[in-house]
């Protein structure tokens, strides 16, 4: 199966509750297509992080179905999930850098988990450090890095494995607008190489910075689709799938 065809992720009537509380996500259904760029917006507490945790396989939904790269991951045995996680890149909202590892080793972690040889990973990790502007801080521990620097390390770690799906939770929250733009360009570059990108943000200004992006909006745990685009494959894939379908994403508000 070529990564360009079919869907990357499909949620079918997903609900999530923590413990016995009310549902924080209800009736969430959507499909993410390969090579598309999605923003997930919504007020603080709307459930963005919860939805992303389902996406990066940190959590099982309370109900509904999730398929990933064509496989139903709900019924999949636990032992087969690591292989799926290795196809994902995740920027956690709180970065989750390993405190006693240097910036270099944090970024190298996904490659080492995947079993890459030491000789092969020095090059890509150094390139990545340069891309996020942290070459001079390669050997610094996270505690000695500023919030913005930590965030860039977290982003570098998420993208270094060239994931099929990149999930970023408020990735520009701790950096200045200039760096935020630079990081978005990094995501876009990765997106052009074929990675599906999902960026959660409550910063509506960010959305305009990526013209080709699609928007998902969460409101109190319910997903709305202001542009209507999610019901259809995105424009770039239109020709492959259904050339006559309308292109509703140009209208609407969010």
């Amino acid at each position, binding site marked *: 199966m070529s990564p360009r065809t079919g869907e990357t992720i499909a949620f079918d009537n997903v609900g999530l509750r923590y413990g016995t509380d009310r549902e924080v996500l209800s009736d969430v259904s959507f499909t993410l297509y390969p090579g598309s760029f999605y923003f997930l917006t919504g007020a603080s507490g709307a459930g963005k992080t919860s939805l992303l945790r389902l996406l*990066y*396989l*940190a*959590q*099982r939904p309370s109900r509904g179905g999730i398929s990933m790269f064509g496989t139903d991951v709900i019924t999949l045995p*636990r*032992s087969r*999930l*690591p*292989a*799926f*996680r*290795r196809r*994902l890149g*995740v920027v956690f909202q709180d970065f*989750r*850098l*390993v*405190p*006693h*590892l240097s910036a270099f*080793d944090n970024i190298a*972690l*996904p490659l*080492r*988990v*995947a*079993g890459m040889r*030491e000789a092969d990973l020095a090059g890509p990790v150094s390139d990545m450090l340069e891309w996020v502007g942290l070459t001079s801080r390669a050997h610094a521990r996270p505690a000695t890095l500023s919030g913005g620097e930590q965030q860039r390390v977290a982003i570098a*770690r998420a993208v270094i494995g060239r994931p099929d799906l990149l999930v970023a939770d408020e990735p520009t929250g701790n950096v200045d607008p200039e760096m935020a733009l630079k990081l978005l360009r990094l995501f876009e570059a990765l997106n052009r190489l074929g990675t599906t990108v999902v960026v959660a943000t409550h910063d509506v200004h960010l959305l305009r910075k990526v013209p080709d992006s699609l928007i998902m909006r969460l409101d109190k745990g319910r997903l709305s689709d202001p542009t209507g685009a999610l019901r259809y494959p995105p424009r770039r894939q239109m020709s492959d799938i259904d050339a006559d379908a309308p292109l509703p994403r140009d209208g609407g508000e969010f």
Partner: protein
Amino acid sequence: MRGDRASQLVPQARLAGPIPWVIAIMVALTVIAAAGGLALNNLAQTAQSELSGGATVQIVEALPLERSRQAQASLALLLQHPAVVSAARVPDEELEQLLEPWLGVGADREAVPIPALIDVRLRSDATETQLDSLRTLLAEQAPAARIDAQSAWLRPVFSAISSLQWLALALVVLLGLTSAAAVWLAARSALGTNRNTIEVVHLLGGTDSQIARIFQRSVGFDAALGGAAGLALGLIAVFVIGRQFAGLGSGMVAGGGLSWIDWVLLALVPAFGVIIAVLTARVTVMGALRRML
């Protein structure tokens, strides 16, 4: 993924935390207790095998000539008896030497008659029936003969040694359990502080055994270091105490030395500690991971 790569995921945690110290102290104490137990065991066995087949014939006769005659006759009879392996008269000079502290140098032999002693080795244990048959054998020719099993006098000593052995065994078991519990707690707390790391590697696609190996290695390394230090300490203590006992020059204590098998057993104590530590790390990490998706 090969094991050596697993350690590089999250490099060896340095010797932080209590694990090496806990293990060092516990291993040292366990080694000392175990060495004591093994030495007592050897002592008991040596003494037992020497004494259980032994009997002593005393000729309690005041007249030297008659004493001598009866001793000769007894010796001859004993040597012919099928149950007797060997029999020898304890030389009078040796007896005098033994008694010197009580009787003084050059005590008048006529004034304080010393019984003649015959040391008898039997083919099997010196049971009462055995001794009775010897008594009837000697009764006619040596009416002054008294026969005792050597172990009989030492029975209280044996029971003391055996209680000490049980005490040492109990100490080793208690120390072993305490060490296991301490290592368990220390490993758990070390892993608790690394929960975030475990979860991150898990979310980056690390498999359960990959992640468990990281911690098995670092905990195992800590435990091995602590164990080696503890073993060294324990062995030094055992060696010093051993030298002091050897210095006593007592025949009884000489039987309490440690054989090479005993030293190997002592060296296994830290290995046991390392195994507990590594197993704890594995069980704890696997348990923590199973609670994650």
